[in-house]
């Protein structure tokens, strides 16, 4: 692939350890503007940590992270707050505010950044609920009153509500039935195609990978060991990738953590 323009997100040699647990050992990754990147890798390999480093929620030990060519690891908290409005994040566990209702959750980011009034915020939340396949009576419930899959979809609605430039989806389809998973996949594709957002997703669901990814990166042993377009993934010639995408128990990856 030829270098066309500067990437939207650029990670260079990012390292992060928690005590003796060396999670990231030099991650290099470029994500182009308007591209849908999917990160795959075993459980506990540091996928969520990678996203949190880009969001500035975890400070990496070393390395550089550029978003729109701005170094975020050395930013003051003021500058970080500004750049945060570019991001939307679906957390792996949902991370819905349990003291707020569903519609307040969904409109939270918009109400923080604009003077949108209550009625508009409510109807916007109901629209987003529809987009993730939920009926409008859900809007007035609290997160604790929803099933796990419904919470996931509300969290997704919250992540995309402010139409951010960059959206991270941490396991968007985990815990959903196959049909709903496909609805969510379509929604993610739509975010990238219609809104021109740059998306980075984490998923273990290969059907989802094939549907939403423009490019795929595989993380193993704290590094990105392979990345390329979705077409190349099937014939990557990389034993690790092959084992992972076909879900084989035998191969170079040992499942002993």
């Amino acid at each position, binding site marked *: 692939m030829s270098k066309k323009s500067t990437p939207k997100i650029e990670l260079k040699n990012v390292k992060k350890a928690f005590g003796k647990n060396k999670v990231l050992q030099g991650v290099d990754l470029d994500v182009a503007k308007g591209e849908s990147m999917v990160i795959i890798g075993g459980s506990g390999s540091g996928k969520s940590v990678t996203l949190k480093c880009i969001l500035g929620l975890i400070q990496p030990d070393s390395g550089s992270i550029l978003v729109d060519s701005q170094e975020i690891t050395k930013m003051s908290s003021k500058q970080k707050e500004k750049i*945060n409005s570019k991001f939307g994040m679906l957390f792996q566990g949902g991370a*819905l505010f349990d003291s707020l209702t569903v519609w307040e959750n969904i409109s939270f980011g918009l109400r923080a950044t604009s003077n949108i009034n209550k009625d508009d915020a409510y109807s916007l939340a109901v629209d987003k609920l529809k987009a993730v396949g939920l009926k409008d009576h859900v809007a007035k419930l609290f997160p604790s009153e929803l099933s796990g899959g419904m919470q996931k979809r509300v969290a997704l609605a919250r992540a995309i509500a402010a139409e951010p430039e960059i959206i991270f989806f941490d396991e968007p389809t985990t815990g959903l039935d196959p049909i709903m998973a496909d609805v969510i996949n379509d929604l993610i594709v739509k975010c990238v195609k219609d809104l021109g957002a740059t998306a980075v997703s984490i998923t273990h669901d290969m059907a989802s990978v094939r549907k939403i990814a423009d490019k795929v990166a595989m993380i193993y042993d704290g590094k990105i060991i392979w990345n390329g377009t979705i077409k190349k993934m099937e014939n990557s010639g990389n034993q690790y990738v092959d084992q992972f995408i076909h879900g084989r128990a035998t191969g170079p990856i040992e499942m002993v953590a």
Partner: protein
Amino acid sequence: MLAAVGNAFLAFLAAVGRLAEFAGKALSHCFRPPFYFRQLGRQMIDIGFYSLPVVGLTTAFSGMVMALQSYTGFSRFSAEGAVATVVVISITRELAPVLAGLMVAGRIGASMAAEIGTMRVTEQIDALTTLSTNPFKYLVVPRIISGLIMLPLLVLVGDVIGIFGGYVVGVYKLGFNPGSYLQSTFDYLEFMDVFSGLVKAAAFGFIISLMGCYHGYNSKRGAQGVGIATTNAVVSASILILIFNYIITELFFSV
């Protein structure tokens, strides 16, 4: 051995440093917009209104027992007349602020640490940041301000209830004349007695909120982490309340 003591001392200094940094950050955010008035209101009701029963009960019984104790003690040297004065001074200066502080530390400090700790471990605090909301301003500042304002108000109410408790025992059990009991209650009461109690209350309110927020905010992962944060919030707030109670008393009344 020496090295172990040294390390423990260094760890202690580091912990104090982290706490001071947290407190400084919290205070500096108190004066910078945006302000979350809805959160502030919710915390004020939680700390102020819902603590009223527990503070009322403790101060009422403290006033009552003070009247009884000082009466039986003072009757040994026929100084029963000082009962009302002893009750009012000990309630306003010591008992109302300290007991209210300790009770609220148990009630509010624990629930703050548990709530914020749960938000930490379920990544809700991270989510706030990604939704362009500073978690310090949204979570910590309303709690600190509420603690600072509501504890003195609670103690003021506690003062009245405690004095009334002493009055009830004095008049109905010990047979004092209602008029003269009230007379001697207010004759020797000085502004400083009440004021020092309210200053203490504000300091305790700050300590309670700070400890609840600090331990919750830095909660370790998992349910166990939240449990530890809750315990630490209550224990550290209680100890600090007793230490600062002495320091503030010293500042007001030494010489």
